[in-house]
């Protein structure tokens, strides 16, 4: 018997889906002949213009989290979900563009873990590479799960068939065209996501009686349509969070931890042609990112305002339900293609980051030190294959959580929050030692996991899963920071000569002669002005 989300697709819907698949696979096929070396396959030959890397930087993050997760959160937590953009993304994107990108790109490291080897030592790199590999496989699994439930509930396909089919498509184009194919498809998918979901937000708001209609309908639930005025106490908003947890947990630790250190996004910027292009990459991404709550969070608010009933109380069904309710024939195919695009860009982003870290930071560093370029290329392709296979296994873990977003924030808290402390101290404090970084990182990750275990058995209680994830991240970050500082102070200071180009105070500033509109600072100011205005409007 068809479920509440089941839809009947007609020929035009299938045609739109078919066109989408043809182009995604066609790009991979077209780029296949250019993938002759490991650098071309894994690093795109560092030749892509910044408008493309900028959109890919954003789109790699536009996975299941961004659309299904954020729409679900819009329903569950209201407009406060926009904090994930205006507090939890933009400031960090500006920071990484202005201050950190010159070190990543300028050091000529091929990956984030490799930067850690240059700045610290082999063991810190190994720990980061391993934890990042685990994170990417888990995150890739989330995207796969998201796609599988869409196929299952909307088209009635078996969840196992859906997982295998969608994995095969992503595997095909990343295996053929490597990072370039992934980046190019992310740009194509970005535009499809915008065209697929923006009309949903518009018709949804119209159906709810406009913005004032949404505010009236949600007036009985405090904090659903405001972002700051309801953030003073945990009881004032559905997220159960207050100002400190929000600013420190999301706005600083989780946000900077993700945007400044996660190789998934940094890899896109490192594919740029030069340092100014790499710096512009996150800044170009920041502007559409600031406007994305209107495309993904607002539909969730609409669903809450219209009191749409969620099957099994699963918030992740919010978006599929809205598609079914508002989209006619043709648009339904477009909406499904946009959902597929978000899933595929999220998954391909993780898979391409995984294969690079696996090839350079694990295989070449520990398994086969003198590997030839062809051996690295082969390993990169194989890593793509079994990264996808491992993701299939992790897709089933997601079933234990009622919200994708809560699960993802938990993972970020384990892995990204402590590594941000390591980078902060490594890039901006020359006294930080290799042992300090390694033991700090190890203790930080352990503290994050321990916090989760202690909370799971009921020793600590939080008003919501999201609040728990924020505080878990704070615990992991502070532990890593304190242990790194203490161990560093106990050891001998590293030689300054070895830190040139890797630490802020020991790197001479380059005076770039660029027109004002191409300077990274100009883009940063423009983005920050837009974000301040948005915060003020929805205070």
């Amino acid at each position: 018997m068809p479920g509440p989300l089941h839809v009947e697709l007609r020929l035009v819907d299938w045609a739109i889906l078919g066109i989408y698949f043809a182009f995604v696979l066609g790009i991979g096929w077209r780029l296949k002949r250019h993938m002759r070396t490991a650098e071309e396959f894994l690093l795109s030959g560092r030749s892509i213009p910044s408008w493309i890397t900028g959109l890919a930087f954003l789109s790699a993050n536009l996975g299941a989290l961004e659309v299904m997760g954020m729409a679900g959160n819009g329903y569950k937590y209201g407009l406060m979900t926009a904090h994930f953009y205006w507090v939890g993304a933009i400031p960090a994107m500006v920071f990484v563009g202005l201050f950190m990108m010159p070190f990543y790109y300028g050091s000529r490291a091929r990956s984030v873990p490799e930067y850690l080897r240059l700045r610290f030592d082999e063991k810190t790199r190994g720990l980061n590479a391993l934890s990042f590999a685990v994170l990417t496989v888990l995150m890739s699994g989330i995207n796969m799960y998201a796609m599988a439930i869409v196929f299952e509930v909307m088209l009635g396909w078996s969840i196992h068939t859906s997982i295998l089919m969608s994995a095969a498509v992503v595997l095909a184009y990343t295996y053929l065209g490597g990072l370039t194919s992934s980046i190019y498809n992310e740009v194509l998918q970005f535009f499809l996501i915008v065209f697929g979901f923006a009309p949903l937000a518009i018709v949804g708001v119209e159906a709810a009686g406009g913005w004032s209609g949404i505010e009236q309908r949600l007036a009985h639930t405090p904090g659903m349509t405001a972002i700051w005025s309801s953030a003073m106490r945990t009881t004032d908003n559905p997220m159960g969070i207050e100002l400190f947890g929000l600013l420190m947990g999301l706005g600083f630790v989780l946000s900077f931890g993700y945007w400044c250190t996660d190789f998934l996004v940094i890899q896109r910027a490192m594919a740029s042609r030069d340092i100014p292009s790499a710096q512009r990459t996150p800044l170009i991404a920041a502007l559409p990112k600031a406007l994305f709550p209107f495309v993904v969070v607002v539909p969730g608010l609409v669903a809450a305002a219209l009191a749409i009933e969620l099957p099994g109380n699963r918030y992740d069904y919010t978006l599929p339900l809205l598609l079914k309710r508002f989209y006619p024939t043709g648009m339904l195919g477009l909406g499904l293609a946009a959902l597929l695009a978000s899933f595929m860009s999220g998954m391909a982003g993780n898979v391409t980051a995984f294969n690079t870290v696996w090839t350079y930071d694990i295989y070449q560093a520990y398994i086969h030190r003198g590997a030839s370029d062809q051996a690295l290329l082969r390993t990169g392709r194989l890593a793509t294959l079994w990264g996808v296979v491992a993701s299939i296994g992790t897709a089933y873990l997601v079933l234990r959580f009622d919200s994708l977003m809560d699960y993802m924030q938990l993972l970020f808290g384990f892995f990204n929050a402590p590594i941000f402390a390591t980078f902060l101290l490594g890039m901006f404090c020359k006294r930080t030692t290799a042992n300090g970084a390694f033991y700090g990182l190890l203790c930080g990750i352990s503290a994050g996991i321990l916090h989760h275990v202690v909370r799971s058995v009921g020793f600590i209680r939080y008003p919501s899963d999201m609040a728990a994830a924020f505080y878990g991240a704070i615990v992991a970050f502070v532990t890593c920071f304190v242990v790194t500082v203490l161990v560093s102070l106990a050891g001998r200071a590293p030689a300054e000569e070895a830190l040139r180009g890797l630490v802020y105070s020991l790197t001479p500033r380059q005076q770039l002669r660029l027109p004002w509109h191409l300077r990274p600072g100009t883009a940063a100011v423009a983005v920050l002005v837009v974000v301040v205005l948005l915060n003020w409007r929805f205070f």
Partner: protein
Amino acid sequence: MGLDIRLPIGLMFCLMGPLLLGTGLAEGSPLSARTGGAMLLFGGVMLALGLRAQLSASSSEASSSSDASASSSSSSSSNEIT
């Protein structure tokens, strides 16, 4: 990498747009028609930008190769337009 990404994007939207526009007009759905029209317009702009870049690249390639033969020196030009 020898592929201007604006071309496949433009082409894809130029194929999807008319499908939606036609369906919207035939079934009286303004949402489909407007979205299809917007996609067609966007696809057309991307396609035009991509084609223009390709034309200017091939003309600069032709002029640089004629310069090269005139001066009897070897030169290579980048055909990388992304």
